[in-house]
Every structure is written in C-alpha cells, then in structure tokens.
C-alpha cells in the first residue's frame, strides 16, 4: 500500500485517547454480547417438548427479523440505513450472505442442543473464534505487527479455549449425553462454529468499509429469513410446516423472544467486531458459553443427577474457555496494529469505491463532517408499532411450557442482562452516538 494513502488517516492514528476509548468500548460490547447471546439460546430448550428443530429455528428467525428491523428503526431511524446503502450498495450482498450463514448455523445448533445438550453444544460451536482469528489475520491484517505479547495473548487464549472445548467434547462422547445421536450433535455444533466463524468475514468487510452495524443487521435479516424459509419448506413441505406452526402457536412467543434477545446480543457483537476486530471480538462474545452454562444448570437443571466427574469436566472445560477469553480481552490492538487495520480499510474502500474520509470517520465512531443527523420518520414508528403488535398478539396466545424451570435464578440472570444492556448501551451512545 503506498505510504501516501496511509497518511490520509494520520490524524486519526494520532488520537490515541479516542482509540483506547473505542477499544474499551469494543471489549465491553463483547461481554454484553456474550450475556445476551447466551440468554437467547435458552428458549431452544423447547425442542425437548416435541417441536421440529426446523420449526423452532424458523420461528426464532421470524423474531430475529422483527427485531432487526424495529431496533435500528427505533435507535437511529431507517433514513440512516438508506444513507449507508447509497454509500456502499455492495454491502447489501455481503449482509445477505452473512444472514444465510447465520440461518444454517442456527438450525445446526438446534440439532446439536437436541442431541448433546446446551451445556456441551455451546463450547463446541464457540470454536468459531479460532476461525475468526484465522480470517482476521489472513484477510484483514489483524494481529499484524501486534507484538509477541499480544499475539501470544490472543493465540494462547484461543488455544486454551480449544482445550476447554475438547474437554467438553470428551464429556459428550463418554456416553453421558442426553440422546443417542451424540456424534451427529458434535458434528452439528462444530459445523455451526465453522459457519459462524466464517460469517464474520462479511461483518468485518462491512465495518472496514464504514457501514453502521445497525444498517448491516437490517439487510442481514433478509438473508436469514429467506434461507430459513427455504430450509423449512424444503424439509417439511408447505402444508405440514403450516400445521406445525399452528400447533406450536402456544410457544411461538417464547421462541420469537429468543430471537429478539439474540438480536440485542448480536448488535453488541457487531460493535465488538467493529471496534476490536473479529480476532478479539468473537472470543469475547463467546463468553456466551458461560452464560449458556449458567442458564442450563441453574434454570433448566441440565446436569441434575449426573455423576460428579461430568460436572468437573463441563465446569473445568468452561473455566478454561473463560481463561482464554480473559487473555484475549487483555491483548487489545496497539497503534501499529491499528495502522494495519486501516491499510485493510483503504484497500476495501479503494476496491469498492467508497469515500476514504467516510470510512475513516466511521472507523473512528464519528459522523462525517457535514453529514446530516439521522432522524426517525413515521415509517420508523410504524415499524416499531408493527413489531411490538406481533409480539403482543403471540404473547396473548402463549402458555408457559410444561417444563421444570427454576424462576428465581432466571429472574437474577435477567436482571444482570438488563444491567449490562444499560451500561453498554449508554457507553455506546456517549462515545459514538451509535455511529
């Protein structure tokens, strides 16, 4: 890359304080993402009451679709989304592709949960962080000129996470799994990890080209809903699918709520990917594994009655994974590494013809000088009202599933979720105004 191009970003590079603030914001977003993504998996436990995994995934994706349109409309307004698309129309294709990857991965996770349980499936698909590091290094200059300590922190952390995941896989294959298809469950969870790890290529591509995470997720939703509809109709047929949806109407609300919760986690994850890159952002948001474990054990009593050795394997493996996450969190990118990120951003903006100053401003979490302030229109409020109405209608039909749930730990976990939402949401607003 010619030095003259890199010098376009020199003022931003010198703003060390701003850069550190954005790094911290990315790390905080990663942790908030972990908590919300972990909570979103809990409703998929409903698979044990006899609903097809395809139908569960489709209903969750419908909830996701509603959330991915209504939340951005509420936070920034659809005018901001339209402005982003005018600047970088090619990113719509990337967002659709990422949505398709998400839908297939999500369906695989439902099969994995059915076959090997939430506590064990979680860390297996969280192997996506290893792929995220690889793609970040190969394609987006992440960890280049990062120094040995930071590289060791990220790679060592990923390795420790891998050991933790292996420990959990051993626990799965030792015949203690909840179902007879443990090998299928392991493949499904690992496959989901590969799909989700690769899904971050479009994410990073979008953020290096200046797209707002809230705009990206809006188009992402078409890819996931389209792919999920194709999978469901192809698998079950239109009439049986409709009949299954009708018979599942009493739990539709809970599954759509799971999708909604997932979107909140995913939006935080998008900000993490934007501000700390995918090699760090993915492992951080993979702390959802710990949250999933807490929900599985405390609320659903998942390991109740198992031998103490299984507890040791699952808890030990999870702690190792969390140790790896901590190591990565303390290895944030230095100025020289960030210069390499910006080289990758220049490459992308040149390739796709996006204005360099726009990319620079967005990477710095700012609006472009002279860029109009986003505003909400009647259309935005209409989207919010429509999405809310759908949730209210299905909430009226909902019944609490006949499952053994412990409500006190559930209430505590929900309170922590909202606390993290408030802290991280406020930090994002104060620092970037969600730009």
């Amino acid at each position: 890359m010619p030095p003259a191009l890199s010098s376009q970003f020199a003022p931003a590079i010198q703003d060390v304080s701003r850069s550190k603030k954005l790094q911290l914001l990315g790390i905080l977003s990663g942790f908030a993402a972990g908590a919300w993504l972990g909570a979103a998996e809990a409703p998929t436990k409903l698979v044990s009451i006899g609903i097809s995994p395809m139908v569960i995934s489709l209903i969750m994706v419908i909830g996701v679709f509603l959330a991915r349109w209504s939340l951005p409309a509420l936070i920034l307004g659809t005018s901001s989304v339209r402005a982003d698309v005018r600047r970088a129309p090619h990113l719509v294709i990337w967002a659709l592709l990422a949505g398709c990857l998400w839908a297939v991965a999500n369906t695989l996770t439902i099969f994995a949960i059915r076959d090997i349980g939430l506590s064990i499936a979680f860390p297996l698909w969280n192997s996506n962080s290893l792929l995220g590091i690889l793609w970040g290094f190969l394609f987006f200059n992440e960890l280049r000129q990062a120094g040995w300590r930071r590289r060791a922190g990220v790679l060592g952390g990923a390795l420790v996470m891998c050991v933790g995941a292996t420990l959990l896989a051993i626990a799965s294959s030792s015949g203690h799994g909840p179902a007879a298809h443990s090998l299928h469950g392991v493949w499904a969870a690992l496959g989901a990890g590969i799909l989700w790890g690769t899904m971050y290529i479009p994410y990073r591509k979008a953020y290096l080209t200046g797209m707002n995470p809230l705009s990206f997720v809006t188009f992402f939703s078409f890819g996931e809903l389209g792919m999920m509809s194709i999978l469901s109709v192809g698998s079950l047929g239109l009439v049986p699918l409709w009949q299954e949806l009708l018979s599942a109407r009493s739990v539709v609300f809970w599954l759509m709520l799971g999708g909604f919760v997932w979107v909140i986690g995913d939006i935080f994850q998008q900000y993490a990917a934007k501000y700390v890159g995918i090699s760090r952002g993915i492992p951080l948001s993979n702390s959802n594994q710990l949250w999933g474990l807490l929900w599985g054990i405390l609320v659903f009593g998942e390991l109740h009655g198992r031998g103490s050795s299984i507890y040791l394997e699952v808890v030990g493996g999870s702690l190792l994974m969390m140790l790896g996450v901590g190591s990565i969190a303390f290895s944030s990118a230095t100025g020289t590494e960030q210069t390499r990120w910006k080289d990758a951003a220049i490459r992308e903006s040149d390739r796709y013809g996006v204005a360099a100053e726009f990319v620079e401003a967005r990477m710095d979490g700012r609006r472009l000088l002279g860029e109009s302030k986003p505003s909400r229109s009647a259309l935005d409020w209409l989207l919010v009202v429509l999405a809310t109405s759908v949730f209210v209608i299905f909430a009226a039909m909902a019944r609490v599933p006949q499952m053994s749930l412990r409500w006190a730990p559930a209430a505590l976990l929900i309170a922590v979720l909202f606390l993290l939402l408030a802290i991280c949401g406020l930090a994002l607003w104060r620092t970037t105004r969600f730009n």
Partner: protein
Amino acid sequence: MSATEPDTNARGWWTTILTDIHFWVPVAVLMGGLLLLRFIR
C-alpha cells in the same frame, strides 16, 4: 492477497464482488453447511 488489491477500474460492484476471494470463502462454507444439515437430518 492479490484478489483484493485496489480496483481502479470502474467495474460494476457485482463484478467486483464476484472477483473478490473474500466472497467465495463464505459461499463455500455455506454450501458445506447445507450439505452437513442434509446429512444430519
């Protein structure tokens, strides 16, 4: 990564995407995922 070198021509963004190696990696993984799903079902 030669496939992602700056594109100075005024090609359509569809062509630009289809000649970007970054695009084909997720496409290949998506195909693999669909095959795995078919196998598991």
